[in-house]
């Protein structure tokens, strides 16, 4: 296929309060590109707009959310011009998403098999019987033992790790081209986390999936991703190839994030925390949103938000120092 799988250009999503008086710029002027089969990590603190960005791609925002401008091009089609019915045929079929909390994302009143078979029946029009046997294969694919008995069980009978694998099985059930995983391992034990990440990587290879991995864990990004995009206050402050950004971060925020990762066996440097609080998305500081916490703040940062500067090939940074 010519061109990238997903191209997001200048996307802005706002939350508007019931009376329209308060506007929160959850996603502000975000541009990113993803090639087929590639993995993009989106990193940021809570409230930085990561999840809103993901939900915007699928247009499943909460009622107050509005995509106010921009373009989302997926396999050459503009998703923002699609009707609701057309969008519905894309969700789960061509773009799938894994939510953060496996305990809450399965419906307690329906069996596992029913919930895994559901997208297959809706999108491919499969019969109940064939969808159920496909559901069993999918459970096997996500390495659940004894899938033939598990399909008839209810979510509460399964462990957190198993549930999250089932959510994974639902996500790949219709062979999507793009999988968005929103902090899929945050609520899992460390050992289960590693297992789950390996599973996601194997699934990605087997199905040639493009993966958007949303996390606040830079270690996971290093392990999983080719590209990384760092979000702060709704903006993409830095993006580029993982190796480049880890070795030569251009934005002070990225640098601070990297310095706040504990390293084993390294007792010489002190672990540094980022001063100050993450900004309130409803009341972002003017200029560059990071300026109140930035160690290299200049007068210009307070007055004017920096545009996206190209630091190197495919490496951009929104910082006056990069200009």
């Amino acid at each position, binding site marked *: 296929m010519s061109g990238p799988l997903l191209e997001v250009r200048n996307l802005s999503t706002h939350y508007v309060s019931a009376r329209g008086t308060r506007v929160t710029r959850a996603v502000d002027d975000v541009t990113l590109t993803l090639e087929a089969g590639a993995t993009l990590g989106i990193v940021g603190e809570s409230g930085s707009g990561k999840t809103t960005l993901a939900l915007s791609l699928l247009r*499943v925002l909460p009622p107050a959310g509005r995509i106010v401008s921009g373009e989302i091009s997926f396999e050459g089609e503009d998703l923002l011009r699609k009707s609701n019915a057309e969008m519905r045929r894309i969700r789960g079929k061509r773009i799938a998403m894994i*939510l953060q909390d496996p305990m809450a994302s399965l419906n307690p*009143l329906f069996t596992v098999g029913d919930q895994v078979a*559901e997208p297959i029946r*809706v999108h491919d029009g499969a019969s109940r019987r064939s969808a159920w046997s496909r559901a069993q294969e999918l459970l096997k694919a996500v390495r659940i033992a004894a899938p033939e008995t598990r399909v008839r069980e209810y979510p509460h009978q399964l462990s957190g790790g198993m549930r999250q694998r089932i959510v994974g099985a639902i996500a790949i059930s219709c062979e999507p081209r793009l999988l968005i995983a929103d902090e899929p391992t945050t609520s899992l034990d460390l050992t289960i986390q590693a297992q789950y990440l390996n599973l996601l990587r194997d699934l990605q290879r087997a199905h040639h999936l493009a993966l958007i991995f949303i996390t606040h864990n830079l270690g996971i990004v290093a392990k999983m991703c080719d590209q990384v995009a760092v979000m702060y206050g709704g903006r993409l402050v830095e993006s580029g190839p993982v190796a480049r950004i880890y070795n030569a971060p251009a934005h002070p925020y990225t640098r601070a994030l990297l310095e706040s990762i504990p390293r084993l066996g390294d007792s010489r440097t002190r672990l540094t925390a980022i001063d100050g609080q993450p900004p309130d998305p409803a009341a972002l500081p003017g200029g560059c949103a990071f300026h109140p916490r930035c160690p290299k703040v200049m007068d210009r940062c307070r007055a004017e938000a920096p545009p996206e500067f190209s630091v190197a090939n495919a490496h951009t940074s929104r910082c006056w120092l990069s200009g």
Partner: protein
Amino acid sequence: MKGYILRRLGYSLVSLFLLSVTIFLFVRVTGDPAVLLVEPGASKDDLEMIRQQFGLDQPLPVQYGSFITSLLRGDFGQSFYYRTPVLELYLSRLPHSLLLAGAAMVFSLVVGIPTGIIAAVRVNRWWDSVGKIFALLGLSMPSFWVGLLMILFFSVYLGWLPSSGSGTLLHLVMPAIALGWVFAAAHMRLTRSSMLEVLGSEYVKLARLKGLPEALVISKHAFKNALIPVLTLAGINLVIMVNVAVVVETVFAWPGVGRLLYEGIAFRDFPVVQATVLLGGAMIVIVNLLVDILYAVIDPRIRY
């Protein structure tokens, strides 16, 4: 499950015992029934004879003892006024009450659940506001007043429906609506809030992310979960309807248990009041138990 049911049964018996003591004492606060049963100007001896006849001259613990021992044999005593066994009286009125409560329940669910769902799906929009006004009216208009308004409109002005009595389906319409009105509003409010909670859940979000049609998201993933609290309330309300229909049954001269209780209180007919209240209490206790068991059937997570 069996142990759970037995344990719950034990608690239920304790509540019924406490209820029996309470009603036994409270009904005796209303006054001396003998005064109402003799002709005006009767002598002190006549009054004393009647008290003796009904055992009202005995000390309270003795009266309670004989009340409870005959109760355990299934004997609710004789009505002071009708001079017939209270249980017979009660059972002859019960079908009317059940019919009225059943019709009122159907009305309240048919009105309450769909409006609640629409209000939740169209939250803060036009339909939701209509629903809020409806709920406010429902909860603040007393049933006797709704009943009187309906009689005025449908019986007096339009002459479409009989104003009182029983026997035909037409007789049932107004009492059922008057009684079901408040409950329709209560069911609507609970359906709305329960739907809203479920619609905000992660599994409904995932259902949308799967690409399911919105109608299926609401009817399958949201509705079934939202129905659980509504069913509980409806089950308890059905029994409450049987037992609070006193006012509506009086307005429409509907020959149910509520009217019997009203008559019992008016005539100081102690056995009638005791039996009606205790049987009503027993019904509420049993329905609570049944609803809990029904929960376990609908919701696979509940295992005792």
